[in-house]
């Protein structure tokens, strides 16, 4: 009974974090749409936090299975009165990987604005740039590194049995390492936001679903390759029809 309650509490806390991120994306997300020359450093900080919250909302849902596994281990340890580090440290480590990514893509976006590849509306202003991102993202789906990272994301148990680390530092480190695999999986998919609008909610929802299918569905690896073909085809379609 207590076990069930603890499980519900855990699910609720993860859900709250994800919900908060989505609430922000749906209702609070606003950005300075002025030309980049008029940006203040505050605007860049805001842009960075927006990316960080978006990444949390988009990436945490498909990582819930490994969070749940860690929590199961911790609950059993708690019952045995053995030392453990809260599962939230693992989540924190995982998020740190995406925080790092958010920083890089914020700077990249800022630079792309300067190059006028992005409009002040925060989307691609050049057809070739949009198509190039789509093609690169599509090809990446087929690369060994993508498939290597994806298989590690999809099989969290093997990671835990072979790379377990004790303590708070260990939990953060494990989360960070696992986060890097997810990063290796999805970093280029997320750059599609630069092509079609950084705050494009339809795309945000779609990308979240695509990532979840890749990672959680039984044939996700095949799906990831099909997605690659679709991305390249849509680039061709855009190039030929626009």
């Amino acid at each position, binding site marked *: 009974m207590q076990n069930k309650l603890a499980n519900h509490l855990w699910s609720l806390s993860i859900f709250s974090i994800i919900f908060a991120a989505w609430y922000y994306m749906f209702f609070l997300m606003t950005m300075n749409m002025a030309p980049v020359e008029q940006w203040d450093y505050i605007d860049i900080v805001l842009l960075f936090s927006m990316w960080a919250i978006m990444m949390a909302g988009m990436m945490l849902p498909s990582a819930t*299975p*490994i969070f*749940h*596994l860690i929590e*199961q*281990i911790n609950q*059993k*340890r708690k019952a*045995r*009165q*053995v030392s453990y580090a809260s599962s939230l440290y693992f989540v924190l480590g995982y998020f740190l990987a995406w925080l790092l990514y958010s920083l890089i893509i914020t700077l990249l976006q800022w630079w792309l604005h300067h190059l006028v590849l992005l409009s002040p509306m925060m989307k691609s202003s050049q057809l070739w740039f949009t198509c190039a991102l789509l093609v690169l993202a599509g090809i990446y789906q087929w690369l060994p590194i993508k498939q290597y990272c994806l*298989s590690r994301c*999809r*099989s*969290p*148990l*093997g990671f*835990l*049995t*072979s790379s*377990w680390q004790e303590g708070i530092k260990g939990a953060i480190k494990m989360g960070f390492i696992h986060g890097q695999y997810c990063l290796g999986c999805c970093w280029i998919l997320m750059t599609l936001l630069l092509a079609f609008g950084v705050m494009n909610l339809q795309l945000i929802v779609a990308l979240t679903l695509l990532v979840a299918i890749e990672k959680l569905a*039984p044939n*996700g*690896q095949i799906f990831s390759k099909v997605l690659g073909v679709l991305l390249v085809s849509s680039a061709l379609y855009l190039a030929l029809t626009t």
Partner: protein
Amino acid sequence: MIMSSENTSKNKWVLSMHQIECCNCSHGCGCQFSGFPDSDAGSCEALIGFYIKAGHLDNLDLSDIKVIFAAAWPKAIHEGDGKAILFVDSAASTEQVSAIANIFTGQFGGMPFEALAGTFSELEGPIVANISMQADDKHSSFTIEDVLDVQHTPLINPMNGEDQNVHITYPDGGFFWNDGIIGTTKAMSINHNMFSFDHVGRFAAKAEVNWAN
């Protein structure tokens, strides 16, 4: 259910074992590579025999004990909700049985048992039974009369009908083992009130494992 008080000593354990595993996946076992079973039902049903070559829990020697772990998960292992039954050979002493039960159910920590324990919602045992077990690279087997029966046999080369020598090797460390000798199941059945199954011609692997907490 097994529950014994710990902290009486340090509960440090080391096990060096023959591992004779088989499951309802096709050859290769999807869980090894993509985290999901490639069985027809998408479930994972496994029988794993362990022969402890050398091992101990603190000062208690655990060498030469035979253990069988039977498990069934409705979906991928990491998705949880699994059931497991633990059998320990009747040659083991009461202390040894309790030590094995605590180690194998993750009570004393240490991978991979501790992670696996989190994937079970029901656990039965330890059932003390008469286990016969042969750890052989090509023709491993283990049996409990009227309960379960596992027999490994090598994969056959379809071109010339000869035994195939197949290994799955993880130079950087694998899911549970680093080097597995791959065969197939001539027999793999369990008949128990918790679950029953019978899978012939499925995934089989014989490996050496060295685990500790």
